[in-house]
């Protein structure tokens, strides 16, 4: 797996190896790579900008652009894996997560590959959120939280006063600017950052119009073109290690929007039992092979609420490594439910990968809700407030 290639087994300085190597064998284990171990493997553990090894299993991780989501996924997204976002019904919030991912790539200096059938990738890049620098972060947070402070939240706790200052879910701004940044959704990313970055765009209508009408093949024409495009970029830019001139390793961040929608030529959203039910699953299978062999991470948004066949949804989730589902309250009966009045939707972490492990890093928290504030997208524990409609089972009197 490519994820372990740069930090091969010999260079895993975390944990037990360090302890066993020392004379006198202490059981204290240091988490994190040792600075001294860098020279041992030559260029194998050269640290790539914007990545860090996981504290649990040393897997190389990249940030998804949203530190709260990184925390829920166990530190970040592993290099060589796919993050699948199941879109919400009106496709309001999934483009946000998509843009956070791409913006994080630009800030970290990674190469981007943006594929879409609906919008031109250049337009998508123009709309990325602006990064918040560290010294402005705290100010933005305080301002944001002050704006929607309700009277109830101002009540100081009488008994549990020590917990007053603890944040609800996500940590504050990270002090080091190397992994996980904060973004201001109300502002656009500065133009010079986009121009300084390297990116490739794949806009399906352009690619299809220039080609001849396709003869039927094993995969939808659009998917085939996209896979060929990704493969060519990986090969030319040396993300799979074939190009020996590459001295500075970098990560390729791939973003594919609305995969499976009819605009890609796939009709799983239109009919339940079609002949080409397997196009999307074949695409994901081949994509996963490409990713595992290269230093890349991919985010895909899929309109799973439109897919008619439930089996296809299950297969698509199985073929992806990490699956996050967004459910917005807009238009559903939950919009008027008093439990949910502070939030805009629920976020479901459906699957976390088990990479080189026997167990995945599944958090115990299942009730997560998100809220899009003016500048920030926050994920919080959904606090179950006092339920006024609590129905008690009938109690018979004691006599």
């Amino acid at each position, binding site marked *: 797996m490519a994820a372990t290639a740069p930090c091969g087994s010999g260079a895993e300085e975390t944990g037990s190896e360090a302890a066993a190597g020392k004379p006198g064998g202490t059981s204290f284990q240091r988490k994190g790579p040792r600075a001294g171990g860098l020279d041992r493997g030559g260029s194998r553990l050269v640290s790539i900008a914007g990545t860090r090894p996981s504290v649990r299993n040393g897997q190389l991780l990249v940030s998804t652009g949203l530190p709260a989501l990184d925390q829920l996924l166990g530190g970040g997204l592993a290099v060589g894996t796919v993050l699948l976002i199941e879109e919400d019904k*009106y*496709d*309001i919030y999934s483009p946000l997560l998509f843009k956070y991912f791409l913006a994080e790539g630009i800030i970290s200096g990674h190469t981007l590959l943006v594929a879409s*059938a*609906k919008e031109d990738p250049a337009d998508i890049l123009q*709309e990325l959120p602006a990064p918040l620098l560290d010294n402005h972060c705290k100010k933005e947070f305080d301002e944001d939280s002050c704006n929607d402070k309700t009277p109830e939240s101002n009540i100081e706790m*009488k*008994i549990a*006063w*020590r917990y*007053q*200052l603890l944040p609800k879910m996500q940590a504050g701004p990270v002090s080091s600017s190397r992994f996980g940044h904060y973004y201001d959704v109300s502002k656009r990313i500065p133009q010079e950052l986009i121009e300084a970055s390297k990116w490739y765009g794949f806009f399906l*209508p352009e690619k299809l119009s220039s080609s001849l009408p396709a003869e039927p093949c094993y995969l939808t024409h659009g998917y085939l073109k996209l896979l060929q495009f990704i493969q060519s970029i990986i090969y030319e830019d040396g993300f799979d290690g074939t190009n020996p001139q590459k001295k500075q390793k970098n990560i390729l961040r791939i973003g594919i929007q609305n995969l499976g*929608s*009819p*605009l890609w*030529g*796939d*009709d799983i*959203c*239109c*009919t*339940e039992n079609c002949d080409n039910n397997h196009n999307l699953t074949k695409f994901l299978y081949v994509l996963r092979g490409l990713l595992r062999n290269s230093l890349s991470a991919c985010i895909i948004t899929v*309109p799973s*609420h*439109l897919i*008619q066949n439930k089996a296809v949804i299950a297969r698509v989730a199985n073929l992806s490594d990490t699956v996050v589902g967004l459910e917005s309250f*807009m*238009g559903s009966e939950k919009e008027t439910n008093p439990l949910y009045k502070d939030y805009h939707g629920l976020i479901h972490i459906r699957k976390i990968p088990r990479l080189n492990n026997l167990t995945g890093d599944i958090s115990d928290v299942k009730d997560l809700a998100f809220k899009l504030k003016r500048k920030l997208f926050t994920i919080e524990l959904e606090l179950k407030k006092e339920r*006024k*409609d*609590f*129905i*008690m089972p*009938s*109690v018979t*009197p*004691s006599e």
Partner: protein
Amino acid sequence: KRRPSPSAFSRAVCPPVALPDSVQWEGRSLLKALIKNAALRGDQVHVLGCEVSEEEFREGFEPDVNSRLVYHDLFKDPLNWSKTGEALPGGPLGALRALCGRTQPGPVTIALDSLSWLLFHLPCTTLCQLLHALSHQNACPDGSSPVERVHVLGLIHEELHGPGPVGALSSLAQAEVTLSGMLDQTSAHIVNRRLRQRPTQQTQWFSILPDFSLHLHRVPAREPRPCPPTTQVDPTAHLTFNLHLSKKEKEAKDSLTLPFQFSSEKQQALLRPGPGQSTSQIFYEPDAYDDLDQEDPDDDLDI
């Protein structure tokens, strides 16, 4: 008494508007009203007619509206059997592609009557891609002309299709107008999905006059009564023990001093440790039973 709600799927305008309708609430008159609106606004209107004949469609429009209406007829001879050369070349696919490749300047409105007919003759994915291309044909190859407004209106009969195609088409639409109503009044439930903003929903009652102008109503007099609020069950009602506190008991509870409840200065000092506090501090707060004797007890030792 509520009728089953139909959905008129009107695709609107750039991005498309979908007008779903059903057997009970006919959507074509709303489509014609919107077309008339567009024509009077100065747009050039192209109509791809598939379900009714041209004469029937043009009926009821004023002459100036009719002059701005360019009718592409797919009703008379959709499969080009008569071979007179009158039919549109390429069938429905060719007609749509021709509309996509239109290069005339000026704002334009394209009305598709109906999307249901097109869905039966074209694969759904092709139709979605063509509709997307129709509404996004702003970019010219040379980039010289400014961005033109293209409005696409589509009528779809929701009952004829399963949830799949309707859902797929509505995900492309910027506004979706569902027709329903009560007795003899029609309402339109509009979901407006502007780009990059939260969608809005609203319900608008309207009626269409014989000359196809749109008359918007306020909320009609007879509205269905809202269902009465369900009574809330009080869980403390039938217990064998007392959960309520009297006023005196509440006061006593509030004034009780809790064991780890410190004074507010001590709380603040513990919550926010100061910069120079590397060593721990000792806070002494005398209890009610503490005996504060200021004398040094070692004074009387004889050393």
